């Protein structure tokens, strides 16, 4: 089948929008239809994203499947899409987690189902758009499109303290992104001033070779950095994350951890480094230090969390520290590891939130102290939860290990001491995850859980359908990480060539 003529990227971005529009016309009481329509849309989007794989050439440089159309010609703003291996793996991650999250919401979402599904599908539009946009203005639009549905998902379907959490999430993210808009405009103005024309002033492929003035680079990098650092979230901009996770419904948490955090990491690689390479070198030492703090600090704070979701949220801070560390050591293994880590963190942490959701559905509680002894009444659940617990602590053979190891390796090449500091997390990670698992799954059944009686059932077939693909992917990427590494090899090389190789003046 020849797919080259079709606008596949536009297709994968806007298919969820079509689904959302269709759902808008479904009568409110037809809940089953709404559900299946949403799931069907997400599955079609997933299928389209898979269609991108056969036609993709991992050995080619530059962007593939590029689509261009003028949008606001007066300012050179274009509707321009394209992908390389990095965007490709993140798009497929997004479409995978989206249908899983929608399926996982079938039970838990009981009120305003229609609005939920519409929000969710629009969220998917924004996320995929961010990964595919090659025009900075278009990128910014998609970036903000992500914000609104997430604001609603937490604010409407969230827990008791949802308004505080969602406002914090939105305002925090908005501050970052508006500064980024300023930086985008400043870059475009500067480009226009130099070339005398607006043509290409927002075109990423034009701008990345431009070579901005050092001061502008430094400031613009700072603005982009803030936007992306808040999204990742990097220490010390992370405090919105635990609140948002605790209040968000399960599907919201899955997407938040699985995809939204990756927008930040992707932004660093795609935009920050190629556009402002000099500034990247100036900022890198600070970012590396913040990443090291995040890795250790997140793990230590995770240790004492009383709430399962907060524990996983702080573990995300720790894990995402690897992503920023791997990116900013400007070293091939490090950056490949960072991208691999993004994908695997998305899968594994997404799955952990699904696992927490399974408990929450039955107990309406997430307090670790009230749990205990789940292994006996729910053995299948205990096994799956254990599997992802081990994946999260970086067990070799499962997804998390290779990405983490490559980041360690790259860091060691840059500074053995930094690598030694970061690697303390292999102890801390094992400690907080195994302690949590021990308190929830081992021991005698707790009185709280005994009180639930027959409501304490093992995973349902529907929950199994959401978790099994993630188990398969975690195994596959652990045993054959080449599936991803082969795709990202070339673009990582390109980014590093632009940013100028390993950090100079490396620390001891």
């Amino acid at each position, binding site marked *: 089948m020849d797919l080259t003529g079709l606008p596949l990227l536009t297709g994968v971005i806007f298919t969820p929008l079509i689904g959302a529009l269709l759902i808008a016309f479904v009568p409110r009481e037809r809940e089953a239809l709404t559900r299946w329509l949403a799931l069907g849309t997400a599955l079609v989007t997933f299928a389209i994203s898979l269609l991108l794989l056969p036609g993709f050439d991992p050995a080619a440089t530059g962007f593939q499947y590029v689509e261009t159309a003028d949008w606001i010609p007066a300012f050179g703003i274009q509707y321009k899409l394209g992908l390389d291996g990095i965007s490709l793996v993140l798009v497929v991650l997004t479409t995978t987690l989206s249908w899983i999250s929608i399926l996982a919401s079938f039970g838990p979402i009981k009120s305003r189902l229609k609005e939920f599904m519409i929000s969710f599908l629009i969220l998917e539009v924004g996320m995929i758009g961010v990964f595919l946009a090659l025009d900075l203005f278009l990128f910014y639009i998609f970036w903000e499109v992500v914000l609104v549905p997430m604001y609603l998902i937490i604010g409407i379907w969230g827990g008791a303290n949802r308004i505080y959490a969602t*406002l914090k999430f939105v305002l925090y993210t908005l501050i970052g992104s508006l500064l980024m808009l300023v930086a985008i405009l400043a870059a475009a103005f500067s480009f226009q001033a130099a070339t005398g024309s607006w043509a290409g002033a927002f075109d990423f492929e034009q701008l990345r070779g431009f070579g901005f003035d050092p001061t502008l680079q430094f400031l613009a990098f700072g603005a982009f950095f803030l936007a992306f650092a808040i999204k990742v979230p990097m220490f010390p901009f992370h405090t919105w994350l635990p609140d948002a996770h605790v209040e968000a419904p399960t599907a919201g948490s899955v997407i938040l951890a699985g995809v939204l955090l990756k927008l930040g990491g992707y932004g660093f690689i795609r935009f920050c480094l190629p556009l402002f390479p000099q500034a990247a070198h100036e900022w890198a030492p600070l970012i590396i230090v913040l990443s090291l703090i995040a890795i250790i600090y997140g793990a230590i704070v995770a240790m004492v969390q009383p709430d399962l979701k907060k524990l996983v949220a702080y573990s995300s801070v720790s894990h995402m520290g690897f992503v920023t560390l791997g990116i900013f050591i400007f070293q091939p*293994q490090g950056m490949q590891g960072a991208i691999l880590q993004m994908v695997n963190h998305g899968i594994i942490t997404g799955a952990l939130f699904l696992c927490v959701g399974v408990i929450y559905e039955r107990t309406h509680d997430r307090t670790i102290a009230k749990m205990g002894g789940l292994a006996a009444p729910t053995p299948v659940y205990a096994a799956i939860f254990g599997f992802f617990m081990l994946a999260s602590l970086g067990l070799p053979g499962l997804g998390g290990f290779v990405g983490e190891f490559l980041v360690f390796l790259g860091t060691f090449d840059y500074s053995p001491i930094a690598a030694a500091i970061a690697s303390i997390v292999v102890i801390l990670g094992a400690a907080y995850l195994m302690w949590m698992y021990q308190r929830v799954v081992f021991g005698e059944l707790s009185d709280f859980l005994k009180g639930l009686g027959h409501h304490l059932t093992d995973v349902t077939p529907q929950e199994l359908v959401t978790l099994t693909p993630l188990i398969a992917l975690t195994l596959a990427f652990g045993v054959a990480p080449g599936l991803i590494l082969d795709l990202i090899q070339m673009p990582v090389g390109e980014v590093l060539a632009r940013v100028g190789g390993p950090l100079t003046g490396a620390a001891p």
Partner: protein
Amino acid sequence: MPFFTEAPAEAVATTGSSLDQLLVIALLALPLAGFGLTALVGRRLGARAWIIAVPAIIVVWLAALYLIYQTLIVGAFGDAGMHFRLYEWIPAGDFHVDVNFAVDALTAVMLIVVTTVGMLVHVYSIGYMAHDPGRWRFFAYLNFFMFSMLLLVLADNFLLLFVAWELVGLSSYLLIGFWYRRRSAALAAKKAFIVNRVGDLGFGLGIMAIWTTVGSLDFGEVFTRLPGQLESGAIQPWMMIGICLLLFAGAMGKSAQFPLHVWLPDAMEGPTPVSALIHAATMVNAGVYLVARANPLFAQAPEALFIVAAVGIFTCILAASIALTQKDIKRVLAYSTLSQLGYMFAALGVGAFVPAIFHLVTHGFFKGLLFLGSGSVIHAVHDEQDMDRMGGLWRRIGITHATMLVGSLAIVGIPPLAGFFSKDEILGESFKLGFVWVWAIGIVVALMTAFYMFRLMGKTFYGPSNVDPHTEPRIHESPRSMTVPLILLAVPSALIGLALGLPPENGTIHHWLEPVFRPLDEALHHGAADYQILGIDGFLLGASVAVAAVGMIVAWRLFGFFRLGPRPALVSSVTGRLRGPYVFSLRKWYFDELNDLLFVRIGGVVARGLWWFDVHVIDGAVNGVASLTQGTGRGLRLVQTGRVQNYALGIAAGLLVVAVGYLIVAR
């Protein structure tokens, strides 16, 4: 960037016939399949949950025997052994790691222990676990362990070895925590994994250091490139020391050497077959194997070897001193294992690599036997592990007693049993290579070993019965599935020393392993002096047999031996007079208390403090900014519409002004 040029992947030498390669893959695939199948359908198999797992391991054992025969007897693969690649695991630019396997003499020797003890423990478990409702899990985990352990000895590069290293750690975690309802079991499992991770941190950093300095992780390539790079100065001697110490950190974790020894005694929470297989005969040897495998690295870092010797011999006496007073039969054996592993590391450290591996083999058999025997004892007295509530069992469980006696005499080092040959080589070589202090401590430990083993035998089998009167009439010998493995383990425990160790220091095992340790021998330049039975060697031999005999006789007199009754009054007067050392030993040198203070209490305070910091300082700042804005907003109420969208617009407009202003100024 690392200094190296990469050979193309196709250049990897592949040796061995396709049958041999197929057998290697079968060694891994069968236990893995057995794990998968048993995990999926085991629950439905009920009492016959072993029906997949045990036959799988018997086939593995047969396949391994063929490979061992090919490697060691026929010599089909030459000195270098057989190597082949399955696929490229991590392709990341100039860093790539294969899934590749090797079978050489060292691997073959390890396979002897791993598959033989593994197979016998599987068979033994049919009987031992017959009444446990979770037996399907047990057999699934046990097969998974075999897969991991076989991967560990077959891996042909450092990273794949590391994978297996962590996977055996996982199997150990799962099996220690097998009775997960028991809090102590869950805690012990977690402790084992985390303490191991401390060592693995070092191991992992060591692997990274090897790649950044040598530029490869394949054993063959690392070992061949190294001498040239050392000569050219690309690698400095201090780097070699660093790398070796980092690798040794990993070995200390897995082989439970001081100060990472604390997990092993607690690991006895697992079912006894697990203690025998994983925590005595196979997995805990992984550290010894790692150092032996990396001998071309250690050969270039004598300073690191010195530390290996020091840690080993210290662990050796530390553990033996604790074993003297423990009351739990399995704990005595656990500390004894620590102590014997200490001997092995001491041997490695002094440069006596073959004796270290020799002791690994003999210890694997006799300690596996002793643990399975203790399991049979525990089974007989209905899950009692306290030796104060045993005694007089030798008449009631004759086969168990006889086989354990063989194991005890073997570990104590009475000729001609297995332990005599290997331990004597370790002590003798230490002395002759100039490590007199290692020899001296080793001799003291030999005395302690003889004492604590026959204290164990006396309290368990001889002396008067202290068994619970309700249990007493129901004491029974174990079923045949348990006693047959005991007998089968007693045979090598008695004879393998004779088979492999004659003539001393030049026996079969030396001939097998000589090619593997050639780089080490060349670097350390110790030529083989002639063995003088009428000279120094005879003296050393006599000394170790004499102390063993003294230790045994003292223990017999205190704790009883057949008709020779025990003397409890004398024991209590001794412990009373030596109150301090006695309590210190009984409380295991207070290591658990120290760790609890350092990591649980102080660590907990730090973690809680940081969380407070997160909520009140970092998030406090965020919320502070928010309320400041809110306060200002109240003042500017007139411009406030109450819509988030308008605020956003306001912020956007303001920032636009700033941006435009900046551009004007910048011009």
